[in-house]
């Protein structure tokens, strides 16, 4: 009975989403305040019913209700309780419901924090969000219902995919979805602006914190995913250009471009139609990602559903939402154009370069991801696009982008003379070039052109980002940096740190594949590994062989590492749990391979210098975004806006 309640709640949520998708939009078009007033209650009601549906599914998981097919397929009575909880989004049907729940949260947030905005605008925003929500709920109910019963009920469940039985899985999907789905908010703002035919600086000021918030979640989500792949998949890689990784990365690239474009629109009132296009693009890529991963058109280690009816349904939603928005854009964007120029050396010019390069990078990733599909559709055979292609095509726009970033940060709006700029940046530039060439040589004894260039750029970005805060700290002149400025410096500093980590970890990665018996001593990368022995270590739902290794440098014992080879009981899947010893300078990574007989095991040992900088850099980017969102001017915006609204209302009244 309870699962049917969940399904019923979801159906009610669909009805409310349909109301939210129609009447407020019509009301805004016809100036009917009573219809517009339905937007907030409909959103709130939808939130309540979606929450009930999600709660019911979680209840099914936590009480081991294997009469629900989705629970039987993705859980097991022996599964630890918090993995039962996270298993709710461990499969296709549940993750769609999760998508819906996250959208309901964002919609509620918009409804709650938009009191200062004109009703007509808010109605349109909520109406657009209602269209998105109705589409996805209909998709869930008609093709991916998580509440379908299994008769007779299974005696026990199939268990959660062992790869997903990891603490990283608790936070990675929620963060990623908050980011992914959060892109619907700037999208809705953009469509509302197109519908209104009006887009002013206040629009940009209002859209920006939402975009940054979604971007922060997306950044954290992608980073967690990469970190999880790094230590859980047991291969020691951190980015594989897998179609599913790409489909979360493309919205991120587009959203990053959007953030920068919004800055121009807010400060100077230009780039308007471009900003709107990026907002549509970022969410379209999120939906495209959903389509690619859910429809099975592309092979991926992540794709769990492969069903052509689902694919067609999502494609229809994609066509309706993105196609509709782009059609609207084609018809209305010209009304958004604004006057206002800028010179070659100006903040605007650099941000324009930023946008172009980000869009090129997104295009390259999109092309590489879709290429196998296109070739197959044209009947030209089956191909796959490899990691080296992606690496080169991604670096080509990214290296100049990072180089320009260091200059762009220090330019003024509208126009700036080149000379003071050069004067200001000569020291960071000099330091970067010298350190970029010398440091890798001094520390690792060898370097290459690409490594020297990339390290130089990494240091250059860090130095340039640190310049303003450091000068402020030393000279103590002028006002303090605002949170937004500090956030920008911190995020850009994070970009530099990330570049250093990515470059050094790739260029100086040491990898040894060897075999060893208990008692053996292995020398690798200046460290000594003593294989003490092997024991059995059992968990609630797996059995494992656990190796014990002493990690030594000279005479010092640094750590005892215990990599495991697990076999999960229900699915009989073997899993490699690598042991990692981490400090800021390097990770040491030991993974047990296969037993070779006669007590010997194959081993993979890796020493990865500066890999921690990848996560640190990404964390700094997210933290920078967080600082920017909490900037004073966004807190002030509500009061200001309320005042301008009141004034606008009066003008309308007078006219």
């Amino acid at each position: 009975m309870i699962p049917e309640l969940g399904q019923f709640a979801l159906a009610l949520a669909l009805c409310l989403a349909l109301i939210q998708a129609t009447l407020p939009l019509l009301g805004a078009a016809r100036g009917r305040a009573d219809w517009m007033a339905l937007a907030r209650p409909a959103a709130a009601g939808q939130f309540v019913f979606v929450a009930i549906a999600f709660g019911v599914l979680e209840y099914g998981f936590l009480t081991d209700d294997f009469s629900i097919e989705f629970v039987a397929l993705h859980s097991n009575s022996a599964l630890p309780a918090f993995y039962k909880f996270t298993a709710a989004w461990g499969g296709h049907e549940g993750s769609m419901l999760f998508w819906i729940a996250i959208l309901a949260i964002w919609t509620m947030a918009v409804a709650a924090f938009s009191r200062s905005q004109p009703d007509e605008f808010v109605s349109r925003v909520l109406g657009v969000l209602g269209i998105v929500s109705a589409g996805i709920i209909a998709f869930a109910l008609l093709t991916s219902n998580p509440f379908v019963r299994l008769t007779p009920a299974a005696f026990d469940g199939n268990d959660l995919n062992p790869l997903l039985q990891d603490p990283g899985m608790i936070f990675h999907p929620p963060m990623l979805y908050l980011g992914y789905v959060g892109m619907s908010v700037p999208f809705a703002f953009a469509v509302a602006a197109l519908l209104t035919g009006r887009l002013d600086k206040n629009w940009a000021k209002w859209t920006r914190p939402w975009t940054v918030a979604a971007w922060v979640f997306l950044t954290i989500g992608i980073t967690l995913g990469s970190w999880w792949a790094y230590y859980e998949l047991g291969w020691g890689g951190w980015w594989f250009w897998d179609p599913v990784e790409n489909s979360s990365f493309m919205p991120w690239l587009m959203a990053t471009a959007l953030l920068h474009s919004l800055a121009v629109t807010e400060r100077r009132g230009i780039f308007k139609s471009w900003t709107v296009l990026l907002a549509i693009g970022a969410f379209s890529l999120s939906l495209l990602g959903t389509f690619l991963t859910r429809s099975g058109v592309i092979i991926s280690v992540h794709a769990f559903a492969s069903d052509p009816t689902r694919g067609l349904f999502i494609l229809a939603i994609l066509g309706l939402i993105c196609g509709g928005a782009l059609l609207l854009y084609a018809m209305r964007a010209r009304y958004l154009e604004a006057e206002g120029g800028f010179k070659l050396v100006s903040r605007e010019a650099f941000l324009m370069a930023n946008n172009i390069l980000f869009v090129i990078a997104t295009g390259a990733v999109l092309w590489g991801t879709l290429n196998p599909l296109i070739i197959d559709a044209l009947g030209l055979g089956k191909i796959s696009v490899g990691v080296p292609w992606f690496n080169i095509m991604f670096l080509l726009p990214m290296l100049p982008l990072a180089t320009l970033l260091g200059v762009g940060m220090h330019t003024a709006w509208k126009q700036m003379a080149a000379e003071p700029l050069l004067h200001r940046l000569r020291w960071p530039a000099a330091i970067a070039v010298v350190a970029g060439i010398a440091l890798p040589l001094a520390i690792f004894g060898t370097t290459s052109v690409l490594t020297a260039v990339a390290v130089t750029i990494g240091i250059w970005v860090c130095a340039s980002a640190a310049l303003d805060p450091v000068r402020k700290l030393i000279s103590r002149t002028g006002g303090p940096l605002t949170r937004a400025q500090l956030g920008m410096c911190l995020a850009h500093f994070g970009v530099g740190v990330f570049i250093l980590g990515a470059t050094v970890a790739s260029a100086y990665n040491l990898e040894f594949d060897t075999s060893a018996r208990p008692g053996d001593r292995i020398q690798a990368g200046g460290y000594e590994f003593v294989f003490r022995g092997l024991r059995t270590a059992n968990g609630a739902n797996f059995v494992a062989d656990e190796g014990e290794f002493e990690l030594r440098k000279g005479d010092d014992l640094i750590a005892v590492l215990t990599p495991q080879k697990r076999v999960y009981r229900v699915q009989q899947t073997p899993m490699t749990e690598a042991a990692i010893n981490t400090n800021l300078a390097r990770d040491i990574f030991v993974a047990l391979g296969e037993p070779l007989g006669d007590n010997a095991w194959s081993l993979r040992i890796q020493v990865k210098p500066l890999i921690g900088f990848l996560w640190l850099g990404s964390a700094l980017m997210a933290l920078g975004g967080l600082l920017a969102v909490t900037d004073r001017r966004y807190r002030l915006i509500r009061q200001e806006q309320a005042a301008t609204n009141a004034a606008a209302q009066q003008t309308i009244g007078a006219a």
Partner: protein
Amino acid sequence: MWRYVVPLIVFATMSGFFVVGLQRNPNYIPSALIGKPIPQFSLPSLTDPSATVSTETLQGQVALVNVWGTWCIECRHEHAFLVELARAGLPIYGLNAKDDRGAALDWLAALGNPYVSSGFDPEGVAIIDWGVTAAPETFLVGRDGTILHKHISPMTPQVWQRDFLPLIKEQCGASGCTFLAAVGGQ
């Protein structure tokens, strides 16, 4: 102005490719076993441990070989359809993999037994030679003892109509098979 239409055109082109792409199956990799003889195997029968199911059992007839187990929830979805095909007279042989005999017998008692007989393969050794990656998998075996088709994931009426029937009609040829009319081929 035309430049505002460009994004829409790009999107429409992409969608066109998606529509075509959806009709194709990216996971379809022709099995290396198609056109090859059935692998050598000999397993005790699930229902009668003294009898065997082996390569010889399958010779000289058009039959399905279905890999299943009680642990495989997807197998439940196809079971009713398999029972239906078996009632129509189509010989279906089972390979019961990585399973418990008691549980497997209970399953057949509860849901019906579509199999002429099932080989019992608790260690999952025999299915390795069949190239089985995930249950359920269904093979079509021809009169001459070669594998004609392999289907991964549950058997459905659509899959049956689209992939299996044409091959079976071809196999049965003029001489005909007794079950052909009953399973949907005129």
